[in-house]
């Protein structure tokens, strides 16, 4: 299928790469299908053996809606989380992959990137489904900074 997106123009997405979002996510209950697109590596993630540790999550029904998500391993070595696989109807623990949504806050001449460790994106790679889970651990930050980037003013 072809999806017209605001950020990436028209992209071709094969059905087998689409991820279902059974319940939407808080604030976006209508988000029901997304696709992942690799977006490079986040600073400080040399330890993670992968081409990408940053991803775009593009909504397949709303071309304007996309999120950036980051693989937490390497950035947050002490990040412990407990996922209730049964509640999410995930068959095996090995089917789980974790991402965290990224927020960008811009200040003067710089932008701070932070990850939501409190409500991770839980991907079931076998069933090709994605959930956002709000963890019980109140100690986990909703906004955990992991990078500061200089911004370039384009004139």
């Amino acid at each position, binding site marked *: 299928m072809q999806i017209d997106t605001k*950020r990436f123009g028209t*992209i071709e997405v094969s059905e087998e790469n689409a991820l279902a979002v059974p319940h939407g996510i*808080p604030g976006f209950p209508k988000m029901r299908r997304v696709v*992942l697109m*690799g977006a490079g590596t986040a600073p400080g993630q040399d330890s993670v053996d*992968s081409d990408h540790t940053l991803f775009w999550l593009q909504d397949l029904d709303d071309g304007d809606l996309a999120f*950036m998500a980051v693989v937490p391993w390497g950035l947050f070595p002490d990040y412990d989380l407990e996922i209730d696989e049964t509640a999410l*109807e995930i068959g095996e623990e090995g089917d789980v992959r974790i991402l965290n949504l990224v927020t960008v806050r811009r200040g003067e001449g710089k932008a701070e990137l932070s990850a939501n460790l409190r409500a991770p994106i839980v991907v079931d790679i076998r069933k090709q489904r*994605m959930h956002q889970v709000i963890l019980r651990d109140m100690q986990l930050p909703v906004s955990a900074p992991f990078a500061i*980037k200089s911004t370039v003013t384009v004139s």
Partner: protein
Amino acid sequence: MLVLSRRKGESIRVGDDIVITVFELGRDQVRIGIRAPRTTTVHREEVYEEILIANVAASSDMLADLGVVISTAHDLPQAADQLPVRP
């Protein structure tokens, strides 16, 4: 909104499989028990609201400005099993 009065120990049933019970009454606080299927999520409203606000911020057009921060370059859409496993 439906508003009901309940005494300590009494319950309310929502649908077929959710039961909400008043456990304790304090001066300005109540303790409530909720029995629901494991697939039903239950959260304090302010916690849910905090995540909702964070999601809206993550989706906002600030990301559209990312071009100057992070490249909006991207690979082709890919399968989820390419995601890195926890080391």
